[in-house]
């Protein structure tokens, strides 16, 4: 298992390097540059802009910029933001990571718990009214664009009912509050964005889990479990679920990039100070170092997520052996 993990991580290093290289050149191919906002501005002469470009090395040939960036990056130097008052990129990203994680992990939990439990219930009650309502609802939620759902939920819960905040991670003036008050306040802020981010995936998961469960319930070993005298609850939750969960774990691993990608839109709509919002703003400002750093972090998260899914897969299914030693 350890050998497998090390091998995967080494492959990942190469993969991330390739992704970042492609991002680097794509960014420089895109029209505009970080200094564009200073052109034709009163009080800033073209000479000044030229001087600034020279200072940041933006006038150098792109290959030279690339080599310099690789050298710095390899040493862990992410450089300075060209947009946020020359702040170190490292600080910007490290401030945003926990916020994005809070949102995506909440969405992931919601998605797994709701998706799996509704999927199992639907499979167990196949063909009943519950199953049909579940199917239609899942299809509906799966099809709704998340930005529209976000706006509708803000409209209903923030504007009309006034029970949930419409944006940001916590209320203004909460700095001096006790930890419990702060926790409640932050939880309230988390509800809408996490729901929107998780619900579409949960709907997909429910459908997938239902299908997987129905497949497993047809297996011979389920008949054996019945022949032992086990009750349905134990057959479903022990014998069937463990098998039905195996393909589902892969789906969860594969869904992590989509959650992080979805977070970009959701963070922007809910003014959530995470990496998604940071990335969108940085792309608009052609803030190259920030975009590359965010891409790096997201890449690492996706790879780690998939690695965890693969490990979970091997743990759930004893037939899968990642080491070569046994058998």
């Amino acid at each position: 298992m350890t050998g497998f993990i090390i091998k995967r991580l080494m492959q990942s290093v190469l993969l991330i390097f390739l992704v970042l290289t492609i991002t680097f050149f794509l960014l420089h191919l895109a029209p505009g540059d970080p200094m564009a906002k200073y052109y034709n501005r009163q009080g800033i002469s073209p000479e000044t802009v030229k001087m600034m470009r020279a200072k940041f090395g933006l006038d150098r040939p792109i290959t030279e910029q690339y080599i310099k960036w690789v050298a710095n990056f390899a040493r862990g130097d992410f450089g300075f933001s060209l947009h946020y008052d020359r702040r170190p990129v490292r600080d910007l990203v490290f401030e945003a990571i926990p916020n994005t994680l809070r949102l995506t992990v909440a969405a992931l939990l919601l998605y797994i718990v709701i998706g799996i439990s509704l999927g199992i219930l639907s499979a167990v009650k196949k063909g009943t009214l519950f199953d049909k309502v579940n199917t239609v609802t899942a299809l509906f939620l799966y099809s709704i664009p998340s930005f529209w759902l976000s706006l509708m939920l803000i409209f209903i819960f923030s504007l009309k009912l006034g029970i949930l905040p419409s944006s940001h991670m916590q209320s203004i003036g909460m700095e001096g509050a006790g930890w419990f008050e702060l926790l409640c306040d932050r939880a309230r802020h988390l509800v809408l964005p996490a729901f929107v981010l998780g619900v579409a995936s949960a709907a997909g998961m429910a459908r997938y889990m239902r299908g997987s469960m129905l497949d497993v319930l047809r297996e011979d070993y389920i008949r054996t479990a019945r022949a032992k005298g086990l009750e349905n609850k134990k057959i479903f939750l022990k014998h069937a679920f463990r098998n039905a969960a195996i393909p589902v774990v892969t789906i969860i691993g594969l869904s992590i990039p989509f959650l992080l990608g979805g977070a970009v839109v959701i963070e922007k709509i809910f003014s959530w100070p995470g990496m998604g919002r940071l990335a969108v703003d940085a792309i608009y400002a052609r803030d190259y170092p920030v975009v590359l750093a965010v891409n790096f972090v997201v890449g690492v998260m996706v790879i780690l997520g998939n690695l965890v899914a693969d490990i979970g897969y091997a743990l759930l299914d004893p037939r899968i052996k990642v080491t070569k030693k046994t058998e």
Partner: protein
Amino acid sequence: MLLRVNNLETIFRMDRGDVRAVDGINFNIKTGKTLGMVGESGCGKSVTALSIMRLVPDPPGKITAGSIEFDGRNILSLPEKEMRKVRGNEISIVFQEPLSSLNPVFTCGEQVREAIALHSHLGRKDSKAKAVEMLRKVRIPDPEIRYKNYPHQMSGGMRQRVMIAMALSCQPKLLIADEPTTALDVSVQAQIIELLRDLREELGMSVLLITHDLAVIAQMADTVVVMYAGKIVEKAPVERLFSEPSHPYTQGLLASMPGYSVSGKALPVIPGSVPDPAKLPPGCRFSDRCSKRIDRCFVEEPPLFDLGNSHFSRCWLYSKEES
């Protein structure tokens, strides 16, 4: 009498019409005795087994008539909760395909232990010790080590031993063995049969042995019923069945056994194949394949004629009016 199956009828409701998989069959099994049930695939043997366990998948299957008296009570009228206490405890079953019948994600030992814990209310430690004991009883070498093996880490014969250990773990009064050796290598088949025979003596249980292999029947059964297209066509003590087979279908089956016919010649076969259960012929179900058929066979279905000496045959050849 441990088991009395009276007029059992199990149908499957299919799109193309109802299929009577088991069509009014009767048989009894005495305590400590073994009833062999033979017939081709699709003749209703396995459905009979599942009906006794009340495990016929519903839908599409349903037991529509008859009674199954087990140890003095009709198990067809037991509430599901009571039936669960019978399954795996008083009546157990061993299926044909041991690999797919064992859950791939649990260890073999755990699957045996689960059955013990369920019916005995032993704690984890005691039920585990009992499970190891059962694995030893079915002659699995190094049972403590094998306990931790997953089904895919065992050979076919070992897996079937695990299935037998699971089935016998609560000392059932009746064991249903549904083609227990069909999926195994020939050399392993003999070992499994020997094991079943020894354990039957040791535990004093009754066995319903379902197979299409007459050699297995000869080795284990006291009484034999031959099934064809959902009906019993012949019922006899095992010696009589082999010495004086009465039904043309049974005679055909025996003739097609290697060692029963003249050596050096091609084995005789029964021409044709089992009729589509949704479109059965109006008279005797075997009529269009039978070498001894008479006109009456095509119009009227024969009853089970009593030939004496506990020998019954569903064939017009034995009708008093006819002879």
